């Protein structure tokens, strides 16, 4: 900010005949200004992106009648931390959190396990028909899930699995995405390594267990994080399949709370903050793997 008043100076005075020292200083000034401008642009962009979060957090610490005020009050007069105590009595938040955690952990575990296992078969074992099979996997990624959610629902209904966790777990644990991401990573591990292990007499299963798994930790972390967050945030699956209150996830619980107490603005925001918090922690811990996972599945495709 302080560099701004100088903005006009470096452009004009660098006329021919100036001493080298002033030219150097002018260049340094220009560099500083550009840097300052970059920070300003980035800060404005970040503010725009983060405003909804600021609004959410500030509202969660207000009284109901303080949420909508003219002009907007970004920092509450008095921080009502009691909202975060009260909400546990208003809705069965513990149950919701436990359900969400159970589903997210189970599905992540199964997806990582079966996905990496299958990816080894698709990338390091050669057999006829393998590639055709893989194409079938990839093709379904392009079919919108919304186009086959009705047949899935009929199947689950026939099997009597609606309104159980089974329906969600079975539908989400065997996705093609995990196979795709892990195969992408295994392809980058040289075949010679696997070949050498075979000559040493290792079976395919021990190659997978002792060589591939340890080598693919970053990819496993990416897949685990992406799956966990997706499952935690999933709305449609639980919305379609889980009807009893005691099976609801955080997302469903929060949505129903909004429906019931639509004027309880502050408390709704408190619930929203709690629903986001676990994801924030997980994201900040594993950010690197997150970004890498997205970049690799995206760019190699």
């Amino acid at each position: 900010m302080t560099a701004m008043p100088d903005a006009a100076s470096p452009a004009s005075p660098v006329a021919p005949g100036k001493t080298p020292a002033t030219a150097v200083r002018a260049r340094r000034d220009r560099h500083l200004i550009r840097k300052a401008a970059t920070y300003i642009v980035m800060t404005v962009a970040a503010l725009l992106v983060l405003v909804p979060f600021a609004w959410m957090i500030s509202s969660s610490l207000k009284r109901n009648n303080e949420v909508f005020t003219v002009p907007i009050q970004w920092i509450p007069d008095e921080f009502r931390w009691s909202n975060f105590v009260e909400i546990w009595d208003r809705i069965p938040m513990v149950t919701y959190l436990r359900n969400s955690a159970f589903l997210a952990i189970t599905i992540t575990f199964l997806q990582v396990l079966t996905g990496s296992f299958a990816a080894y078969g698709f990338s390091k074992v050669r057999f006829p028909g393998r590639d055709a099979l893989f194409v079938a996997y990839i093709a379904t990624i392009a079919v919108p899930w919304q186009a086959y959610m009705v047949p899935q629902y009929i199947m689950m209904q026939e099997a009597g699995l609606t309104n159980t966790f089974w329906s969600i777990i079975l539908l989400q644990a065997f996705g093609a995405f995990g196979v795709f991401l892990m195969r992408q990573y295994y392809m980058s591990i040289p075949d010679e390594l696997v070949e050498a292990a075979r000559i040493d007499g290792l079976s395919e299963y021990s190659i997978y267990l002792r060589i591939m798994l340890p080598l693919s930790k970053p990819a496993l972390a990416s897949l685990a994080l992406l799956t966990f967050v997706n499952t935690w945030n999933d709305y449609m699956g639980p919305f379609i399949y889980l009807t009893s209150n005691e099976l609801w996830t955080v997302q469903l619980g929060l949505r129903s709370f909004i429906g019931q107490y639509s004027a309880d603005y502050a408390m709704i925001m408190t619930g929203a903050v709690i629903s986001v918090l676990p994801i924030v922690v997980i994201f900040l811990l594993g950010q690197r793997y997150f970004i890498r996972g997205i970049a690799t599945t995206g760019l190699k495709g």
Partner: protein
Amino acid sequence: MSHVTTQPDAARPAPSERGRPPRRQGRSRQVRRNTLVGWSFILPNFVGFALFTLVPVTAAFVLAFMEWNSFGSPEWVGLDNFRRMLGDENFRVALFNTFFYAGGHIPLTLVAALTLAIVLNRKIRGVQFFRTAAFFPYITSLVAVAVVWNMMFNPTLGPVNQILETLGMANPPGWTASTDWAMPAVIITSVWRDMGYYMVLYLAGLQTIPEEYYEAARVDGANAWQRFWHVTLPGLRPVTFFVVVMLTIQSFKILDLIVVMTDGGPGRSTLVLAQLIYREGIREGRFGYSSAIALVLFFIVLTVTVFQFRLNERRKA
């Protein structure tokens, strides 16, 4: 996606087999063993995948030509479901709204993601914080996103309209309370949510453009805008193509955000195809008709994607 990398192994065994009859038996035993081992790796995932993805996908295609309600038994009716669609006002509205959404969401997200990526593609201190901030909306739970934005879009007291009024707008839009502005409100929310994801792809893409290209352009006297137009954009073409395809698929199947944020309303102003499938199929139990709508949705996505692939091929040539 995989064809380039996998072709060589398909061809490899053939030449070595030819002219060596004695080893053939060993070879085929090896192939059989590999097949068994390979399948044993794939099977645990494949069973679930086949049962809960392949079967439903196939079933959706068949059901589209059947009349089947929750209590009756399925009956083949040919194209009846599609004929019925033509006269269905809900379908027409949903089709229009889906294109409206995609028409706003695809270009706006693309531009926002690219802008963010270029602004944040600097090697300066603290840039990581800004990248994290930009990515953050994408991992925030949908219900939280929807409820926060719904409140922000409150026509009389919400921050969005307060800011617009401060900026001098006399009659700011009614957003989610108005039939005309509900869809733009949903589009803004979804652009905000998704741009960080595509920014990550663009950031990765920017790393692949060699620094020398920029040096060379600078030596030739290109200014910042010219460098962007002639170096950055062409260098990003593969990423842009991928982003557009992903965005298209994502846009046409939009469902969860709408269900949580507006539930198709007010009126039918934000009713989209995927939501109509949900209503007809799961809520009303009209399995056949909803599958026909699903087939239409699938073909729209497929057509647009194939068209984009064609365009990309032609531009490359």
